[in-house]
């Protein structure tokens, strides 16, 4: 909606209360409606209508209503004021006119009346058509169409057997066999290394702690356990470790003063 429409925007006509005004204006849904009705009384095509004559009719109508001491609704008065301005502008010499020219304003008013008129006529023709429930009727008691959905289930014997196999496989109690691998536990490594450290105060390589005739698998395990045991003893202050560099032989020897502390520290 453009700004131009603003002066023509009024609340929809309310039901007449006891107000005498509405005895006169009740028939119209706002000023544009009244204007359209007045325009129709010129009995010419809305395109040929004389806006000046229309303005006069409106103002006369409003005046007469005022003379009958009716309270006029504000929107009708606003329209009256706007039309009075339009009329005076139309009567002025052309060269004194500003933009927009009164002709333009009049044309806009005319276009709006044409559009409202067209829709009013269209509405009337629409309502006059053969309408269902008034002029034409659909079947009084249609039986109705029903669609019952039925599910047909599909499966096959292999799926059933396979499902059963899976249930059995899934729920069968499971027995786990843990292979008995040759290992040296940390405890026994700790014992071995402690015992061997007690023999001498000299540096010994950690490899010397390994059982000499063990299988390669046990040797790997013994090496790892002995290394951890050596670290543990060093932590307890019972031994010290020494290594020249990465991957060089790791050596270990007993700390003399550690004798006093004992193993349980």
């Amino acid at each position: 909606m453009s700004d131009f429409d603003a002066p023509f925007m009024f609340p929809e006509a309310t039901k007449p209360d006891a107000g005498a005004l509405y005895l006169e204006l009740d028939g119209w849904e706002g000023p544009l409606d009244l204007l359209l009705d007045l325009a129709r009384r010129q009995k010419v095509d809305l395109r040929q209508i004389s806006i000046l004559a229309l303005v006069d009719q409106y103002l006369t109508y409003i005046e007469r209503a005022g003379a009958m001491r009716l309270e006029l609704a504000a929107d009708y008065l606003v329209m009256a004021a706007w039309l009075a301005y339009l009329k005076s502008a139309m009567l002025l010499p052309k060269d004194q006119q500003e933009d927009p020219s009164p002709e333009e304003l009049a044309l806009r008013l005319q276009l709006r009346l044409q559009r409202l008129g067209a829709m009013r006529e269209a509405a009337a023709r629409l309502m006059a058509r053969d309408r269902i429930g008034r002029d034409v009727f659909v079947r009084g008691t249609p039986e109705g169409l029903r669609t019952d959905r039925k599910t047909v289930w599909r499966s096959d014997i292999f799926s059933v057997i396979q499902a059963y196999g899976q249930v059995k496989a899934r729920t069968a109690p499971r027995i786990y066999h843990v292979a008995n691998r040759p290992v040296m536990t940390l405890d026994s490594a700790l014992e071995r290394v402690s015992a061997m450290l007690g023999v001498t105060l000299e540096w010994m390589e950690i490899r010397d702690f390994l059982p000499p005739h063990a299988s390669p698998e046990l040797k790997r395990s013994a090496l790892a356990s002995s290394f951890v045991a050596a670290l543990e003893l060093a932590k307890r202050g019972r031994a010290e470790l020494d290594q020249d560099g990465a991957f060089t032989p790791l050596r270990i020897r007993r700390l003399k003063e550690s004798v006093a502390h004992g193993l349980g520290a």
Partner: protein
Amino acid sequence: MSEPGTLERAVEATLFASEAPMTIDALAAHLGGIAPGEVREALAALAAHYLQRGVHLVERGGRWHFETAPDLAHLLRREKEQVRRLSRAATEVLAIIAYHEPVSRAEIESIRGVQTSAGTLDVLMEAGWIRLAGRREVPGRPVIYATTPEFLDHFGLASRRDLPGIDELRAAGLLDPVDDAFEASMRFDPDEAEEADEHGANLPD
């Protein structure tokens, strides 16, 4: 009299029994996957057959149904089934929506020159004749309205092209906004036209 074909009879029975108008696709599906083209042919044969009878087969917005012949209206009119009498405001709003759809409330109001009370659109919605048709992608994103298939049905229109006088109205530019019509008739510089708007708005204050 030539005997009706099997499909013709099936379509006839289905539409007689249906509680609502049916599209060709719905008919085809209901009849167990008949080709829509065959259904269309059967409908054409049926419509021709019923043309001279007391009941007509009609298409409304792509949906088909039987209804009593319009020329028998005087015999059938019933008080108890009187259709709801619409207020003048409601009939105008309905016409504006039908001829301009989709259209926003502000656009309706600019044509009518009065505000539209909320109840007016509600009445039309409740009757099932108009529906919300999304939003206009302009500032404020106003809701826009359009008519429904039930509207075409109720007023006996095969499609919106059958709206009385719509072609003439369109040709006369009476379905164009005032601004467009104004510019067309003034062949005016649009900038000046905008200025004119502003002045127009300020004058009556």
